[in-house]
């Protein structure tokens, strides 16, 4: 039932609204005639309705959620409650800096910690998600070339395994996208890269470890190639979790990076955000950093603005981005400390390589069997599909019946019937073993009871939903009948 179907005309929450005040001086043509369609329900109705809805979700707090590329790890509760202290919540974004020294201290220290972790010269905290970090990063690359009068650079190179936000971002920054292939081992095809690089190259966007779950071994050579041609290197930090404290993007030769705090730094993904994706820059891009950035003058923290960074690419949010998410990340990094950060990568790698080994022993085909898994790896169900007609989608849906969120499926697009599996470091061995057992069961079902798998899921609040109908007969809002 929808909240609107619980609605009764005239039902109200008296404790949630002020006395009726008069509206003065607003001309009639500017006044609303018909009230908006908001439900009229009691407080308890609303609480029950949304509590029940929540129970229809899978989540990290309730299920194993090995969604590749998304780093679904435990979101410590302390991060939430400490970011929601009343003074932090009440602080107005335009309140003077003198009234926010406690908050700004956290932001400044987070900036400094992220600089160290990424090996970059400067960090700006404001981007509100990975894709916005990318937009800012590529805009800085563009500003850099323009500042040198280098206007012939019109292309951004993107590997075919890259996330969709990479090519979409390059286009939003006015660039043409040149896609390059992947070799058999899962690395960027160096010959293709050599052929693509030239005086028209503005930059290369690279995810390392890549979305194929492997570390790009040739990254130093790639960096040399692109830099020699006058291009810059962008690092998509979605997979930083796999190398946290082990390798710094700055040491790999990247000029500008983003990191998804809602992945590596464990801020919640909230059913689709908010994210937060600080960008880090090498020295030559410092003059173009977006604003505001937190600065410190003799122990007093303040916002650096257009005045401090006159060549800035500008502002990308109305205030300073997702402050509350940044506070959660700050608490998380302080809880981990330097040692804890090293362990994130170590145990993410241990879990991924163990799960890959166990899956392989259980008979699943690993897409890049000769490689180490980074913090994720790919299983391809191509053979299963050929033999039984069961697809990666079917297996994903059947996993839901067994109480597991499905891995990422059909991404990256170049591996057929792929499942990108990422067990984050916070999962125990028992959970991984149970997942392998569930996958084995599904494999047996696929051969013995294929209809059971094809028609999955069976135990979720709804069964397989009709996507085609949803797009054809668009129903995007509820209408009173």
């Amino acid at each position: 039932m929808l909240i609107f179907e619980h609605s009764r005309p005239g039902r109200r929450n008296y404790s949630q609204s002020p006395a009726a005040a008069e509206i003065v001086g607003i001309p009639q043509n500017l006044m609303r005639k018909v009230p908006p369609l908001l439900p009229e329900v009691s407080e308890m109705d609303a609480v029950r309705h949304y509590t029940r809805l929540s129970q229809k979700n899978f989540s990290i707090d309730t299920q194993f959620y090995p969604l590749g590329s998304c780093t679904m790890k435990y979101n410590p509760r302390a991060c939430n409650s400490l970011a929601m202290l009343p003074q932090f919540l009440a602080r107005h974004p335009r309140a003077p800096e003198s009234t926010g020294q406690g908050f700004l201290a956290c932001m400044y220290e987070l900036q400094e910690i992220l600089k160290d972790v990424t090996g970059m010269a400067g960090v700006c905290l404001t981007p509100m998600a990975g894709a916005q970090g990318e937009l800012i990063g590529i805009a800085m690359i563009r500003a850099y070339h323009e500042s040198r009068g280098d206007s012939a650079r019109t292309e951004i190179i993107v590997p075919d395994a890259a996330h969709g936000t990479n090519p979409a971002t390059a286009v939003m920054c006015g660039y043409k996208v040149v896609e390059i292939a992947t070799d058999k081992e899962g690395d960027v095809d160096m010959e293709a890269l050599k052929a693509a690089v030239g005086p028209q190259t503005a930059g290369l966007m690279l995810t390392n470890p890549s979305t194929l779950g492997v570390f790009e071994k040739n990254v130093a050579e790639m960096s040399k190639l692109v830099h020699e041609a006058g291009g810059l290197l962008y690092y998509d930090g979605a997979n930083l979790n796999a190398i946290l404290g082990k390798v710094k993007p700055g040491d790999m030769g990247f000029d500008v990076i983003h990191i998804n705090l809602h992945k590596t730094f464990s801020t919640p993904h909230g059913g689709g955000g908010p994210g937060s994706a600080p960008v880090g820059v090498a020295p030559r891009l410092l003059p173009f950093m977006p604003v505001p950035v937190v600065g410190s003058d003799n122990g007093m923290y303040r916002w650096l603005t257009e005045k401090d960074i006159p060549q800035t690419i500008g502002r990308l949010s109305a205030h300073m981005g997702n402050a509350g998410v940044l506070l959660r990340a700050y608490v998380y990094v302080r809880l981990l400390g330097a040692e804890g950060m090293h362990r994130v990568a170590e145990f993410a790698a241990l879990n991924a390589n163990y799960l890959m080994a166990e899956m392989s022993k259980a008979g699943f085909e690993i897409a890049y069997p000769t490689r180490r898994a980074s913090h994720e790896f790919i299983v391809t169900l191509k053979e299963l599909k050929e033999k039984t007609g069961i697809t990666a989608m079917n297996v994903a849906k059947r996993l839901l019946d067994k109480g597991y969120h499905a891995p990422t499926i059909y991404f990256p697009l170049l591996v057929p019937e792929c499942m990108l599996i990422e067990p984050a470091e916070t999962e125990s061995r028992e959970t991984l073993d149970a997942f392998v057992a569930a996958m084995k069961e599904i494999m047996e079902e696929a051969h013995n009871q294929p209809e059971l798998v094809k028609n999955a899921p069976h135990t979720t609040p709804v069964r397989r939903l009709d996507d085609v109908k949803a797009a054809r007969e668009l129903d995007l809002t509820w209408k009173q009948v």
Partner: protein
Amino acid sequence: MPFIPHTQEDVQTMLASIGANSIDNLFDEIPPALKSGGLKGVPPGLSEMEISRLMLERAETDGRYLNFIGAGAYEHHIPAAVWQIATRGEFYSSYTPYQAEASQGTLQLLYEYQTIMASLTGMDVSNASMYDGASALAEAALMAVRSHKSSRRILIPSTVHPVYRSVVRAIVRNQGIDVVELPYCKASGQTLAEALDEFGKEEFAALVIPQPNFFGVLEEVDTLTDWAHSKNALAIGVVNPMALAILTPPGEWGEKGADVAVGEGQPLGIPLSSGGPYFGFMACKQALVRQMPGRIIGRTTDQDGRSGFVLTLQAREQHIRRSKATSNICTNQGLMVTAATIYLALMGPEGLRRTAAQSHANTLSLLEKLETLKGVKRLFNGSLFHEIVVSLPAPAGEIMHALESRGILGGLDLEGYYPELGHAMLVCATETKTSEDLDKYAGQLRGVLENS
């Protein structure tokens, strides 16, 4: 080891299964020359007790003030149930609803959200959120350019929030899109039709129409919308959703209604929290739905004919269309929309209307009290919602500073943004302010002015 469950025995068993000697071995594909020397800038880990102490101390350093600043972020009462439910693990710790059958809670909630936002703005459809109001406006500008055949220019009144204008410029700049600013009327604080006449012969993809505008003043939205349509440009409303409880929704402006409505969703149950996370909203006419960026939820049926919800029209999005997508946006502000939907359900139409009306009344009442002070007066005569520009007898920055030491954040100093206004501030008194609060403000301001 924080948040890592492995025992020594687990580690040994797992390494044996992998066939590796040590955890270090697992990183053997990384060229040794790239390996980092360590993390010297990261302090040692703290226990939860220690970090709690630190954060409490920092929060206390910041203290709490009686706040009269608005300027795009508004202090409203938030029912306790909103965040208690929004931070339930099932909402808080789930990902984007890619597996629809395992995400019906989030998906149904978003469908309810889309329904409410479409109705609140008077539009046909809404997406499931953008990052914030400023970036939503930039995306609306891009949408207008995509749907317009020949123009790559956008007209923006200078009564639009100055930072929104900066954000729009920063986001559209690299696509060869021009942003042209319109002057405002010094007397009313509105964008006048005369200002538009100057552009009578030129082509534009869109006209942006703020309601209320940055000065808190209500624009003549009907005239502006009709002007845009007469020029074959889209009308983009940038609106405060709280104001729409009492003001004409963009979908009903002028003859045909605005085409797109965007804005900052923060007033709907989101704490001020130093500026974020908030959420941007975007709603539009049906004809433009395929140009819309961001996630959209649709209702459909399952195998057994039961009603259910899915992400739909994904062929607009980056994960399908890559370089041809309508936007690069992927992660949006889901949890904020979760909170906003619960907020809207708890307030209902009457609760929202009263909150808006009381905020309007409090601001007028504050103005009356402030205007009894010498040298303090309202700057614009246009009608207003819940914010107002007031001119002061001394530099606003100095007065704000003096008020701060008296526990009051008096408003936003406008001198940096609109130097032509002289000593001026933008003030807002929402429903959270009592008449004692308003008296206190007026009393303290009097004290400050007398001492200066």
